[in-house]
């Protein structure tokens, strides 16, 4: 009887006040999130002083992060070089019609592996002009996801790598167009005909957000008789270590679940 009463009460409150429970939970989570970040920072800093192995590991992680950021910059530069002329023409025509971009910064309060579904909870919401569908960028400028739910002072972001998500991408210098499927944990896979398969290290772009790459090809697997190669890639930045994101409030990017195998974008 008590269980039935609890169920009815929860459903009734959620139905009458759809955002009330989330806002309550978000308010409770804020000090916990700050505590988690503080504890995490303290533990890692103690480890670097006490253990030489720990300090080397930390330094290694830092260098890897720097290297991935440099790789992203390098890929961006290469793409810029090859497309410079075309972009100049595009920019000239877009400047006449497009509205100026507006960006909002937000801290990440919940991220994988603490949250499931490859989603983030961020500390900015509709009060900062964020709306459903706004693209979300990491601090190196990579578009990593879109706004899925908005509350007055917080929002939920679904990453492109979320299982059940598909995005249209172009791969490598051949600009082969295909659909990348999110696999969770910041990873993607896509099937490409063996004849058009990219090389390891080739950049993958979402055309709307080019020249900043979505990721870099990490592995290509195909048997000798296979027509298609399974290509895996992941975000240049580690999603488990991100602290801040940028939200482009002037654009909307719609991602559809994998059942339809489509992803579209619009500019408003």
């Amino acid at each position, binding site marked *: 009887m008590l269980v039935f009463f609890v169920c009815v009460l*929860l459903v009734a409150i959620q139905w009458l006040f759809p955002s009330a429970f989330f806002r309550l939970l978000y308010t409770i989570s804020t000090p916990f999130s700050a505590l988690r970040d503080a504890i995490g920072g303290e533990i890692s800093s103690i480890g670097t002083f006490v253990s030489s192995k720990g300090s080397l590991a930390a330094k290694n992680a830092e260098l890897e992060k720097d290297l991935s950021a440099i790789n992203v910059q390098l890929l961006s530069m290469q793409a810029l070089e090859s497309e410079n002329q075309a972009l100049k023409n595009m920019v000239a025509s877009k400047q006449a019609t497009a509205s100026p971009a507006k960006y909002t910064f937000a801290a990440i309060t*919940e991220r994988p592996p603490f*949250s499931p*579904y490859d*989603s983030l909870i961020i500390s900015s919401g509709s009060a900062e002009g964020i709306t*459903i569908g706004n693209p979300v960028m990491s601090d190196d400028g990579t578009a990593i996801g879109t*706004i*899925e739910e908005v509350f007055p002072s917080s929002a*939920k972001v*679904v990453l492109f790598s979320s299982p059940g998500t598909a995005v249209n991408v172009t791969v490598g210098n051949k600009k082969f167009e295909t659909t990348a499927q999110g696999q969770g944990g910041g990873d993607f896979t896509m099937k490409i005909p063996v004849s058009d398969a990219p090389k390891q290290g080739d950049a993958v772009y979402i055309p709307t957000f080019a020249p900043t790459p979505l990721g870099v090809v990490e592995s290509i697997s195909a048997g000798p008789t296979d027509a298609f190669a399974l290509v895996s890639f992941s975000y240049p930045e580690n999603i488990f270590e991100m602290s801040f994101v940028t939200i482009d409030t002037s654009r909307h990017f719609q991602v559809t679940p994998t059942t339809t195998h489509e992803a579209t974008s619009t500019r408003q």
Partner: protein
Amino acid sequence: MKQRVLVNSAILASFFLLPWWFAGLLAVASLFIVKDFWEILVWGFAFDIFYGLHGGAHDTFYWGTTIALILYAASVPIRKRISIS
């Protein structure tokens, strides 16, 4: 009563401080520690509300609430069989 408060406090802390699955495991274990642990429904529902995606292109099912309901229902005969007070 003291045990109930302690268990729920531990779940609350792990819900916001640790990976989501840890709080889930703790809630399941609590079914066999605390008698008539109906709070698992609240935690399942809280999981769906806080982490679930609703209203946009992705609409996740209320897995937390559903699994909590099934586990709660299943825990009653299991507790009787394994003679936990």
